[in-house]
């Protein structure tokens, strides 16, 4: 059991869904089943985290052959990076299910369970083809959630996100296939396991194209500026549970992909791409924030906010020093928490007012103080207020940026300015002042507070006591970073 714990973590939601589906379970049983699977997975993940050795490398590894002749293996494992994302996924599913408490459409529940399997598998895979499989699996539930259950121009937007993402995935697939072939050519057997493939070296020209294939997929996912036009429409039309996972997890998987596969397979070539990506990230930081200023739809506004912070994470990743890397990892975690909070709040807004247009809202603070408190808290966490985890992360990245280069540091520090551009005016129009409609609505119920409280607590703890968390990932992160630096000699 312990041996296979990661497999259990990946497949439990899927199996629950299949079982319930097979028996055409009634909605109540479906809800119980989904809730059970998420909590059980969470417990398993916590157990894994508890037994995780910060100084070990990849742990709880399982490597079995899958399709023998073609070298595709079932190869999973967890290290400091995957652990963080794994924890996030498992932590965020139960609150989402609590949010979906009254949801009677079965599709929601099935899709979310499938989604959990997809993202968990993607983050734990160490075999390229297995990773690709899960990467594609994530898309199907999103396609259905947006396409069937979304609002606005949802079918068009669903197609847009799917097609653009697949375009990237396709180029990644080409690269994967070619790499596999090169491995076969040099070594004589087929294998797509990361540990085998990372031993390969390619000539410069080939590797530039191969890396481009991978980077395209991840750049679209993050999204970096220029590859982002799918994001706002998709977030705007998406139902809350899907948008939370998209913002909190899937976008981070783009970063994860570069971190895990990019650095393992193409460390030298990434130096070639680094200036471009850093530039795109710095532009994105401000581009998204400025765009968000005049956005009236709350979901789209925080889609742009998400893009801005993800650009910052990407920036940190390519700065290859200890501070920037730690900051990026920390921001992955804290941003996921904060963005979950804010999107849930937006969802709650929709439930009460039937709209997420800022121009139709206002005056909430007079009637619903608890609501106001949580909303403001999450908004300020996103803005990186000290006391919340976001500040620690941004501080680390800024310091890392200055260590690399003075001007990059200056531009990175603009993250202090970026979030406030849209957040304060938004809070003013949404929560304060006079109401723009006469809806009769309630403040947060106990269930809703219970759902949000863990997020608040985690954000505060990550902000006040980062030293609780840093020892978990620091040793391995320093080690991996050192390996990279040995190969590429640091940046600038």
């Amino acid at each position, binding site marked *: 059991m312990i041996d296979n714990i990661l497999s259990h973590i990946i497949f439990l939601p899927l199996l629950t869904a299949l079982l319930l589906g097979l028996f055409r379970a009634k909605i109540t049983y479906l809800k119980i089943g989904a809730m059970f699977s998420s909590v059980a997975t969470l417990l398993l993940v916590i157990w894994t985290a508890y037994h995780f050795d910060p100084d070990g490398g990849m742990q709880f590894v399982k490597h079995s052959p899958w399709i023998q002749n073609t070298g595709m293996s079932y190869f999973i494992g967890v290290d400091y990076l995957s652990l963080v994302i794994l924890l996030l996924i498992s932590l965020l599913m139960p609150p989402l299910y609590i949010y979906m408490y009254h949801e009677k459409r079965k599709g929601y529940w099935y899709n979310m369970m499938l989604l959990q399997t997809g993202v968990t598998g993607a983050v734990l895979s160490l075999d390229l083809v297995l990773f690709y499989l899960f990467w594609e699996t994530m898309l199907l539930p999103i396609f259905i959630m947006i396409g069937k259950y979304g609002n606005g121009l949802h079918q068009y937007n669903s197609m847009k996100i799917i097609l653009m993402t697949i375009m990237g995935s396709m180029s990644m697939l080409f690269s994967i296939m070619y790499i596999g072939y090169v491995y076969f050519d040099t070594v004589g057997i087929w294998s797509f396991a990361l540990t085998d493939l990372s031993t390969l070296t390619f000539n410069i020209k080939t590797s530039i194209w191969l890396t481009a294939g991978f980077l395209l997929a991840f750049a679209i996912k993050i999204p970096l500026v*220029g590859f*982002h036009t799918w994001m706002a429409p998709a977030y705007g039309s998406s139902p809350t549970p899907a948008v939370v996972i998209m913002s909190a997890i899937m976008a981070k998987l783009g970063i994860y992909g570069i971190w895990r596969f990019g650095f393992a397979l193409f460390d030298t070539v990434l130096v070639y791409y680094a200036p471009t990506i850093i530039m795109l990230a710095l532009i994105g930081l401000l581009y998204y924030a400025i765009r968000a200023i005049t*956005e009236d739809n709350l979901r789209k506004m925080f889609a742009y906010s998400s893009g801005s912070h993800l650009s910052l994470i990407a920036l940190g990743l390519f700065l290859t*020093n200890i501070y920037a890397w730690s900051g990026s990892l920390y921001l992955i975690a804290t941003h996921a928490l904060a963005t979950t909070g804010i999107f849930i709040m937006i969802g709650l807004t929709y439930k009460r007012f039937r709209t997420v247009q800022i121009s139709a809202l206002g005056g909430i603070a*007079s009637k619903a103080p608890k609501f106001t408190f949580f909303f403001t808290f999450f908004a300020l966490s996103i803005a990186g*207020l000290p006391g919340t985890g976001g500040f620690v992360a941004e501080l*680390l990245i800024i310091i890392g940026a200055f260590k690399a280069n003075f001007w990059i540091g200056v531009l990175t520090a603009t993250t202090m300015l970026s979030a406030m551009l849209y957040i304060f005016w938004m809070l003013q129009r949404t929560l304060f*002042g006079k109401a723009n409609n006469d809806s009769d609505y309630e403040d947060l119920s106990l269930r809703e507070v219970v759902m949000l409280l863990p997020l608040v607590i985690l954000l505060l703890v990550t902000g006040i006591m980062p030293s609780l968390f*840093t020892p978990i990932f620091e040793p391995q992160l320093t080690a991996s970073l050192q390996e990279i630096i040995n190969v590429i000699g640091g940046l600038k």
Partner: protein
Amino acid sequence: MLSLIVILPFLSAFIMGVVYLGDTKKKRYLFYTLIGVGIPAISTVLSFIFGIQLLGGSEPIHHTLFQWISIGDFNIEIAFMADRLSVVMISFITFIGTLIHIYAAGYMKEDEGYGKFFAYFNLFMGSMLLLVLADNPIMMFVGWELVGLSSYLLIGFYHKESSNITAANKAFILNRVGDFGFIMAISLLFISLEGSGFTFESIKANISMIDHETLTLIGILLFVGAMGKSAQIPLYVWLPDAMAGPTPVSALIHAATMVTAGVYMVARYSFIYIEIPDVGLFIASIGAASALFAAIIASYQSDIKKILAYSTMSQLGYMFMAVGLGAYSSGIFHVFTHAFFKALLFMGAGAVIIALHHEQNIFKMGGLKKELKLVYITMFIATLAISGIPPFAGFFSKDAILITAFASEHYILWSIGSLTAMLTAFYMFRLLFTVFHSQPTQRKKLHALPATMTTPLVILAFGSATVGFLGANEAYGGNSWINTFLALPDRALNISHATEYMLGGLNVFLGLLGMGLAYKLFAQEAQEAKEDSLFRKVVIHKFYIDEIYGFFILKPLLVLSDFIAKVMDPKIFDGFIYLNVWGYRKAAVLFNRLQNGKVRYYALYILIGVSVMSYYLILKLKVMS
């Protein structure tokens, strides 16, 4: 212990906040007052205990709470340091803070957000104390930002009125612009000193490791942070608008404490600033300019709180003049005295406002000296203090600053400072005479003032009258006690007693001149300033600075955002996507035409295909040979 001074207010804020959110309608007056006022009182006592310890000659007291973060060489602890500078600061911050809390208990009594108010107020106290007691730049920055947060929450306290929220936003945003510079400074500082510890003491010890250029940059960027926090040019525009908050907020945050954080910061980093006197001169110049600028505007304002707000900005200018020129102790001394009389002035103003049922225009007041006798007398004392009339506190602190300017041969700064001194006396007495002396307007019966509001006034008046002697120079019989105690690296001055007396006398003369002018113009019949000349129009509109910012910064941002939304995203990035789609569609149409269903065409295709393949196989791949 030392940490309790900071932790208790945060804890009480948390508790009160949770209780308040539990049921916002319940009145729990006693609970909130006991905790809300009691905790700052405890912090005051603790501060005094530590103050006495240090007075007795003990070394700076440290206390580490726990390790905050440890990544690479970035090891920061949540730790506090009570050295002479911080102990002076926390003494008056907690003392005056507690007085203002007591005042607020009276002022905010009727308000339904009473609990929320005290939660925010205590949050502020905790943050300010964290800022001052932090033993490293990062914790100071955390306090710095949290103070900005508290300010935001408190300015926007009356949240039903959207304009208050705009003021709150303005405060936070401009603070953050300053913080942008501040965090760059801290990062640079850390990177330059990497590996050798990052507390104030260790930075001070290792300062020689940093080259002069970087040091200059750090000094300037730190001051950018101060510009935002302490409302100096150009980041000051939030301060007048911040008066939208309840008056106790204005008293505590925007007079006595938060805004002085910038001055404290320069004093704390004095070991950097002594190395870069050019930056110091820059700071002093900005201070002088802000002082004069604000004084001019204050002379034409009609809202009692706004006059006091500009007055604060002006006095802050003096403080920066001092620390910029290297007279760190004098700057801190002026912070100290200013806290007394400015808090008093604001609280007095609040009392007048409440008595007149929330009237804030001084020209709608008048002749109150008999009905509000206590307020009148205490505010008179404060006005004398701020105008620099001896033996009240303001004289000694302001005098010290002007003497520094004169003695270091910065005569332009000195003359600006002296001119501003006259203007200060003028607009302050203008306020006093208009409110208390000039002809009364028609009004209802005055609202009674509770003792919680009047007692602090008396205490502070006493303070304004006496604390000046703590810093009196030898020329006046004192021994510059506070300068010696603070032991900051002040610049040494060479000036004879005779010159000091002359300058001091000049200050008094200017003060009296301003007072007399105000008396002449406003004591009998006070009239609001009219926009009859271009100069007046410009000044009454505060030099149109807000409009300029709106035009050059806000508008471009909005235009840019719109541009991205309407042109860049849809036409350029999406345009690229649509180009692909168009291409696919065209190709599809083309391929469509090949499939015409006619069998002989298909036969042709087979022919072509087989021919090409055969050619390739036979000739290129040489299958047959």
